[in-house]
């Protein structure tokens, strides 16, 4: 009951003019970064990370939550208007939304995307608030061997979700783990991998990795793509001028989509959000496929299905709420954005875990409130106020945009610790991440490996030292056994069964070929 009281105080904190201003600012930044192709909400929060050193923790977290929610929604804007998803999670929306745009119903598609995002985002935030105390109680039951198996489960899922590139996912994750081993050992006071330099004894900070991986590499990647100006043609922008009333979805259209589609997609999105490293793209894809399978009008899919837009957007915004659960309870980020929010928590001396909810709800509750208010109020409000000018968001010259990002990233990495070394590290990791991206290695896996590696090692060694080196402790401890069994189920369904199916399909193709 205390938690819900603190939660209501969180809403009161959010109503403070200064905190409210940070939420609105975060929402606007997230909308901008989500809408511009190539920029993501992850990059927005990465750029914000160094600045949080000089901010209070509450506004910083409120701002992060607003960026997360708006970035997820804003991807649908350019997905619909110019068929370029602003964020990877809007791929499905691009298919249906742009088809509607071509029929002259782009505004209506944007309205459905906003409605789906609003319902999904609000439900995800409400589920997060309602289930958080239960999650905290459940997390108290997990002992050290169980924590090891949970982190192992998370790391394996991060690798196997890279469906066609498991080996590359493994390489990126292990690189993250290896970088995390630099510095003082997790159990003994001895330095590792410092190669004789004092600067590496304390290890590598999360900040230059985040700045390098998401900001510097993006600047390098855009320079490499050499696509000239990001501006879309003026004729395309002119043809996209829309009126506010066109955004409103009709009641008949909403009834046709059905409340079940919204609810089921939101639940799917929330559930997928809880899984580590999976993220909004998978949530949108699974909900879209499910809605198509159940649809009364499956033929509309691919030709401008409002139901498809609603399912995908409800799922990817609902994922935002789910992704916070493992991050706050176990320090296991559900997606790259929550991985960076974890950095904000750590910078401010907050440790994830059930105690966070017991002792520091006053700091966390405004963030939950921000998630809900962003989804419920700011998404429709932004569409109403800024909708007619959405397409012009992408009319920013590439040179101006990426020069600004580079300055914020580098100066940001300096001001965090007033260290030139951190700037150099950010550049080094940026170059490294650029090559990873260029060769289709998932850079997010590197960050998650870096975050989870020390936990994995610590829980493994602690479990073994508590059980006198007996490895069967992982099988005799019920919580650990549960996560190992869950891991086996995931590996079976996502790797073994899929390769068997692929093998059968391959054989059939070969046999049917003359």
């Amino acid at each position, binding site marked *: 009951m205390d938690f819900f009281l603190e939660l209501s105080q969180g809403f009161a904190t959010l109503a403070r003019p200064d905190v409210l201003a940070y939420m609105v600012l975060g929402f606007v930044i997230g909308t901008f970064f989500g809408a511009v192709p190539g920029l993501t909400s992850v990059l927005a929060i990465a750029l914000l990370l160094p600045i949080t050193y000089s901010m209070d923790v509450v506004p910083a977290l409120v701002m992060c939550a607003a960026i997360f929610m708006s970035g997820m929604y804003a991807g649908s804007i350019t997905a619909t208007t110019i068929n370029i998803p602003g964020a990877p999670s809007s791929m499905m929306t691009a298919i249906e939304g742009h088809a509607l745009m071509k029929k002259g119903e782009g505004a209506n598609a944007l309205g459905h995307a906003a409605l789906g995002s609003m319902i999904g985002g609000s439900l995800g935030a409400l589920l997060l608030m309602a289930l958080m105390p239960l999650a905290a109680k459940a997390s108290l039951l997990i002992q050290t061997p169980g924590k090891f198996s949970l982190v192992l489960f998370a790391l394996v899922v991060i690798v196997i979700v890279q469906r066609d590139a498991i080996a590359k996912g493994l390489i990126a994750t292990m690189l993250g783990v290896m970088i995390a081993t630099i510095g003082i050992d997790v159990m003994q006071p001895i330095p590792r991998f410092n190669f004789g330099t004092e600067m590496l004894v304390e290890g590598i900070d999360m900040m230059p990795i985040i700045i390098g991986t998401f900001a510097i590499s993006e600047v*390098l*990647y855009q320079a490499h793509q050499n696509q000239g100006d990001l501006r879309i043609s003026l004729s395309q922008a002119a043809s996209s001028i829309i009126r506010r009333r066109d955004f409103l979805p009709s009641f008949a259209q909403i009834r046709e989509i059905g409340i079940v589609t919204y609810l089921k997609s939101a639940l799917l999105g929330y559930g997928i959000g809880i899984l580590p490293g999976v993220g909004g793209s998978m949530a949108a894809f699974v909900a879209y496929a499910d809605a198509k399978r159940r649809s009364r009008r499956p033929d509309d899919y691919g030709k401008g299905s409002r139901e498809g837009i609603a399912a995908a957007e409800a799922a990817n915004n609902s994922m935002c709420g789910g992704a916070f659960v493992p991050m706050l309870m176990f320090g296991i980020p559900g997606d790259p954005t929550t991985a960076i929010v974890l950095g904000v928590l750590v910078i401010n001396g907050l440790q994830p875990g059930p105690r966070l909810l017991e002792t520091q709800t006053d700091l966390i509750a405004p963030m939950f409130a921000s998630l809900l208010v962003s989804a419920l109020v700011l998404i429709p409000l932004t569409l109403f106020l800024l909708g007619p000018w959405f397409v012009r968001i992408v009319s920013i010259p590439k040179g101006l945009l990426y020069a600004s990002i580079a300055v914020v990233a580098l100066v940001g990495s300096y001001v965090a610790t007033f260290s030139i070394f951190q700037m150099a590290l950010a550049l080094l990791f940026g170059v490294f991440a650029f090559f990873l991206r260029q060769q289709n290695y998932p850079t997010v896996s590197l960050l998650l490996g870096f975050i989870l590696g020390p936990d994995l090692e610590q829980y493994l060694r602690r479990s073994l030292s508590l059980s006198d080196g007996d490895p069967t402790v992982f099988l005799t401890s019920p919580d650990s056994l549960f996560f190992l069994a869950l891991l086996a189920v995931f590996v079976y369904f996502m790797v073994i069964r899929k390769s068997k199916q692929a093998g059968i399909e391959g054989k059939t193709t070969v046999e049917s070929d003359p």
Partner: protein
Amino acid sequence: MAMREMRWRKRLLFPLFLLVLTTIYVGATFQITPQFSEGVVGPRFLPLLAALLMYAALVHVIRRELVSDDESGKGAFWQPVAVVLATAAYIALFKPFGYSLATLLYVYALFHIFHYQQGRPLRRLLYAIAVTAVFYGLFTLVFGIRLPTLLDVI
């Protein structure tokens, strides 16, 4: 044929670089001296396990690259190199030149690399001054952060 060979050789460079990096890492693992014994799972265990998994995955990737016809990774080469060089220079000059001058030069260089305001050097300079001023305002005035200055002036 020669083109194809060149392409896969280029694609192999990065995994081979990672292979060398992993080998250096393994070498450093053996220099770790534990203060007390924890059995098999000591300070060297996870690094060695990670390296082992890296080797296995890298061998798999290299084998796949050898037979693949994928042409991913197309794009300009000199532009990212120029960005890296400009950024390295910016980092080196950040303290001695101060935020204002170093950032102005850096932004101007990035505008040049991204062909922004090409053929209009004065306008490019004005935009570079504007970007430098905007972020100076953000960091020093909004967030109250002290940035390096040139001779304690700018």
